[in-house]
């Protein structure tokens, strides 16, 4: 007895799985498939969202050794301890709330893992060497987004200037009049400022105005410098603010 030549060889494992995946089911009803698919979707999306929110906790953000320096600085600021008992943690300022911006920020944060592994800022000296560059990147993002993360909590529209200090009310009004954004004046609000921050901020804004061709950015820097001069005429640039 001879074997038939027409007998096809058995497909490989991947091909068999592929064929099984696309073969219409003969044992499951449409309702069953829909209900199971719906429940699986809820479980998947819930788990995905829960995992993403886990990465927004302060414990997660500061779990790496290299985050100790900026954690210490942040704990000295009003965003950590204040009279109202409201606290802004890392993700409140550094992770956008809107979904598409949030996913983008999470993907970009992969670089933090790389630098943690490479030890880019694992000593105080290295940290100081990179402080201006890191601050500059954050300022650029905030300037580009019109300080979007600040405005999750703060908004000119919600401010009652009558109960602000006269100086603050005056400068906030000036900021509104000149289309300025929070970061134009409030650099170093949560972390120490590096040496030469004013020049670097000016460079960042000029770079952005070159990209967008906007005169508004340049005007904002001029106004911010004027406000700084008004607030502290004796010191034009103070590291560690």
């Amino acid at each position: 007895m001879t074997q038939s030549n027409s007998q096809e060889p058995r497909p490989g494992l991947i091909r068999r799985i592929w064929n099984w995946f696309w073969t219409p089911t003969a044992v499951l009803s449409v309702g069953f498939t829909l209900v199971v698919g719906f429940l699986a979707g809820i479980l998947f999306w819930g788990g995905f969202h829960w995992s993403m929110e886990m990465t927004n906790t302060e414990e997660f953000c500061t779990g790496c050794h290299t985050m100790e320096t900026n954690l210490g600085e942040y704990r000295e600021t009003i965003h950590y301890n204040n009279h109202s008992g409201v606290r802004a943690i890392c993700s409140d300022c550094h992770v956008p709330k809107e979904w598409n911006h949030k996913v983008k920020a999470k993907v970009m944060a992969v670089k933090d893992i790389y630098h943690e592994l490479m030890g880019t800022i694992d000593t105080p000296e290295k940290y100081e060497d990179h402080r201006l560059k890191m601050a500059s990147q954050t300022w650029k993002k905030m300037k580009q987004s019109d300080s979007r993360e600040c405005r999750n909590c703060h908004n000119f529209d919600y401010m009652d200037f009558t109960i602000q200090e006269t100086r603050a009310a005056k400068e906030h009004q000036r900021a509104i009049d000149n289309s300025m954004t929070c970061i134009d004046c409030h650099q170093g609000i949560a972390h120490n400022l590096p040496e030469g921050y004013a020049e670097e901020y000016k460079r960042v804004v000029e770079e952005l105005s070159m990209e967008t061709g906007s005169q508004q950015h340049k005007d904002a820097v001029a106004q911010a410098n004027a406000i700084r001069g008004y607030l502290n005429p004796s010191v034009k640039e103070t590291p560690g603010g």
Partner: protein
Amino acid sequence: MLDLLGTIAGNILGLAGILGLTLGLATRNLILAAALGGIVGLVETLGFAGFDMASVEFMDLFIAVAVGILAGALGCAIRIKGTTV
């Protein structure tokens, strides 16, 4: 580079990717599916910019539309391969 990858990931997991795929699943016409996905990408980008064209960055718009088109086409391919109707 990271900025680009982040934008693509944001769109895949956002309206352009998910709604684009869903609309693609609704038709066997590849061109229509891709067009529907592209429209979702366009509307998503404009919506997030408050329908202010001045606030729309060309690269963001391009990536959103491209992801929408690909998602729509993928949805259509799944429909053709996975159903008999």
